[in-house]
């Protein structure tokens, strides 16, 4: 079968982490009783006028800076006109021909391939629309909640530079890390902080790109990946069948796992953009740009590189640790305090994240402080406690029983190093199981593991399994 190449571009909307809306002083966060967070401005009442929120501008500039985009000292606001019940003014205030920033890039690291930079075309500010609620209002009515109306968004228009659904996933994951690391957005897809539209086309080697299809209604990163897999397969099949793909907008149905075309009426938009006459051009002063740059953190890809190169972590671990900036922060504290980055990475990625997943907690609410995990790693690393004890100890620290060293001290959990004590435990086990001992001596070598297990149990996991193993063999030999 002839290979088909996909060209994917993503348009991401992220809700900026401001206290108030973009053009009024209503609270901007998720929540609130329907329509409780509204005022004449965001309701679009006659005679009300917008006034731009400086903090939203600062955050958008900060993102542009983090993405290495060219920040324009003067950009302009524009009206995007369309009629919709949850759009009170009949237009959205956005930016069009003169956006806040252009260019910039995001690095992705596809496993087994060289890292790639994905270009950004533009970054601009715009206000969100409200929400139409269709349930609970009867067949012939809908509810409208305008709390979200006027909430500040930054739109990041990516270049069509992604080649696969997996790359799209990695791009979104990295962009989210950047948004969170810089404090620009909480970027919670479930809260609607992050929304994504996708453009995708397919073409054969050396051929011009095919017709571009836009996918909407993508509600998770996994949804984006699935929708793309499905849509690429659909376009490739159409291509093989010799039927042309038409440029159109399709809606992803996550439950059915398919895309369907939007009705032409839903799609036919002429937004009639023109400069917003209610707002002067957005001129960035030096103080605002300085505030946007202040305290810019190390970016996730740089952190990933440092974890791998300077801390000697495997690439995969470095990657997993830097997907969530808060996880990376926690890891760094543990690694530094414990003095063993590799052990810290293992403990954080397997034990701690496992424990948090079980309890449904974000790392910010971890019941095990970074200093405690570091102490525990040091206890295990120095041989003071066995690996088994260490894992039990993590659960006890998480349960709030105290700090690791204190629990070890109080309960006498330190490793059983006394050869005589280990030998006496081994003898006791062999005496208690004469049949199995005879069986072993008769050639059932597998029974050794049984004895080791019995001795470990007898010693409360404190004995070193290697030494138990050696002692048992000597006694049984």
């Amino acid at each position, binding site marked *: 079968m002839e290979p088909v190449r996909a060209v994917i571009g993503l348009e991401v909307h992220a809700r900026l982490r401001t206290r108030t809306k973009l053009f009024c002083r209503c609270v901007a966060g998720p929540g609130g009783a329907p329509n409780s967070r509204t005022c004449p401005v965001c309701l679009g009442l*006659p005679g*009300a006028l917008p006034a731009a929120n400086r903090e939203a501008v600062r955050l958008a500039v900060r993102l542009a800076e983090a993405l290495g985009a060219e920040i324009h000292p003067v950009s302009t606001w524009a009206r995007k006109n369309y009629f919709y019940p949850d759009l009170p003014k*009949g237009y959205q205030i956005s930016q069009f021909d003169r956006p806040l920033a252009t260019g910039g890039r995001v690095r992705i690291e596809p496993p087994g391939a060289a890292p790639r930079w994905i270009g950004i075309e533009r970054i601009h500010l715009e206000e969100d629309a409200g929400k139409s609620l269709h349930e609970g209002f009867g067949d012939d009515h809908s509810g409208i909640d305008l709390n979200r109306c006027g909430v500040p968004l930054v739109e990041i228009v990516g270049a069509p530079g992604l080649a696969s659904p997996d790359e799209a996933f990695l791009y979104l994951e990295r962009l989210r890390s950047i948004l969170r690391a810089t404090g620009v957005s909480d970027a919670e897809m479930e809260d609607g902080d992050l929304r994504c539209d996708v453009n995708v086309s397919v073409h054969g080697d050396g051929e011009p790109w095919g017709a571009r299809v836009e996918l909407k209604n993508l509600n998770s990163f996994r949804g984006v990946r699935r929708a793309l897999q499905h849509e690429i397969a659909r376009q490739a099949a159409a291509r093989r069948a010799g039927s042309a793909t038409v440029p159109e907008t399709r809606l992803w149905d996550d439950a059915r796992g398919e895309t369907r075309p939007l009705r032409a009426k839903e799609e036919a938009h002429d937004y*009639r*953009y*023109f400069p917003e*006459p209610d707002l002067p051009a957005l001129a960035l002063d030096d103080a605002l740009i300085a505030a946007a740059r202040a305290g810019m953190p190390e970016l996730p890809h740089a952190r990933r590189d440092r974890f791998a190169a300077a801390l000697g972590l495997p690439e995969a671990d470095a990657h997993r640790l830097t997907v969530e900036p808060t996880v990376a922060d926690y890891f760094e504290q543990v690694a530094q305090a414990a003095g063993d980055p590799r052990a810290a990475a293992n403990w954080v990625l397997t034990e701690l994240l496992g424990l948090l997943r079980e309890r449904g907690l974000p790392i910010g609410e971890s019941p095990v402080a970074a200093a405690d995990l570091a102490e525990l790693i040091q206890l295990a690393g120095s041989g003071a406690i066995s690996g088994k004890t260490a894992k039990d100890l993590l659960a006890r620290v998480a349960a709030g029983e105290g700090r690791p060293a204190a629990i070890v001290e109080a309960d006498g959990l330190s490793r059983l190093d006394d050869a005589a004590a280990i030998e006496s435990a081994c003898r006791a086990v062999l005496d208690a199981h004469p049949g199995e001992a005879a069986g072993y001596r008769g050639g059932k070598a597998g029974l050794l593991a049984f004895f080791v297990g019995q001795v470990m149990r007898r010693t409360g996991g404190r004995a070193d399994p290697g030494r138990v193993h050696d002692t048992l063999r000597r006694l049984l030999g």
Partner: protein
Amino acid sequence: MSGAPTKTARAIAAAVQTGELSAESSIEQALEAIARRGGLGAFLRVDRDRALAAARAQDRGRAAGRDPGPLGGVPLAIKDNLCTRGLATSCGSRILEGWVPPYDATAVERLAAAGAIVVGKTNCDEFGMGSSNENSAFGPVAHPEDPERVPGGSSGGSAAAVAAGLVPLALGSDTGGSVRQPASFCGIVGLKPTYGRVSRWGLVAFASSLDQVGPLARDVRDAALALELMAGPDGRDATAAAVPVPRGLAALEGDPRGLRIGFLRDLSEREGTEPAVRAGVRSAAEALAAGGAAVEETTLELAEYALPVYALLATAEASSNLARYDGVRFGRRTEGGAGPRGMMEATRGAGFGPEVKRRIMLGTFALSAGYHDAYYGRALRARARLAAELDAQLARYDALLLPTSPGVAFRRGERAGDPLAMYLSDVFTVVASLGGHPAISLPAPRAAGALPVGVQLIGPRFGEPLLLRAALALEERGFAAAGVA
């Protein structure tokens, strides 16, 4: 013309200040006059009880030693496209009928803070779209001197109310001449401030980049005082300029000596300008020159493009500004059709008048894909060039002189079927609107029985003191409303 001389706002405020006149009797007199001249159709709503209550409160305050303010006791009329808290604001449109704003326009709020008392809302062309007040959904306004004629528009109710002596001061809004042209038709003073001088918060938008709130008054100093009191930056309007407000405007003197006046004679005498208007503006040039001003004839090359540029930009912005009247959240809803879209279409179809619909369609077309650059884009560039030419001329001259309107008040119905003729009557006013420059219309001296003629002065942007000085020079030379005391 009404018989007794009508007091200026300043005279009323002074009398209230000294206690010679109570605010209550000032308001009562205005309410009586409004009731007596109800046939004019100047008011859509009279806020009798609240106005009297405010007047009594002011009188009590004064008795307790509080200053009633520079406009204390002055009855003020407000065009119905300016929001008034708790008082319905319809913009002369069915679609907003019964809508009660939860806030005051900044201009209203500031004049009220200075002691002015709002007595009611005045009739206007629907959303400010018209030059005759015939486009109000609630009926026309009659010219105070000839009931068969129009008072001009769109601030026709405000102009008629001041000209008929019902109130000394009214607020209007001027997008392409809507304060100046009715002032000209009614024989009073109408001032359009520099764009950005007065906050637009609470002014229901027609064309946001052109709209300005302006006073209609019986003399220049009342207009100047009102401007001074309502001007200045406003955190609620990002286009309200952070330019200091000149103080003492009402105390300016009208000395013409040293003034440089550019008389736009060719433009003034273009085809279509009526003889009375030509004569009025020429006599203004002569009066200023005789008083010692340096008057020169000059031209405005790009003025001939002003009307089409205005028509494209104003309608484009209007098409967007009026999108919010969809029946979803406020105003009148008309059920019909399928789904929310059907309801929106039915609401807009029933709620807007024909002129508003015409402009929404024109504006939508001017912005639509494929035509955007040819129409809207070119108009935007032409506007910038026209503004630059005006700036250059106003670096050379302190003020430019031209007519306000090519004609005098016409008969009602005369141009109803001819929108183009109606638009042409804006030819002299849209120039300053596009440039964002301040401009004022003053009544020329006239023979008994003749209809009023307005002459217009355009000043430099944020150069109101200079503009008002030139206006006062004319006023002192007979360019004044009849029967002012």
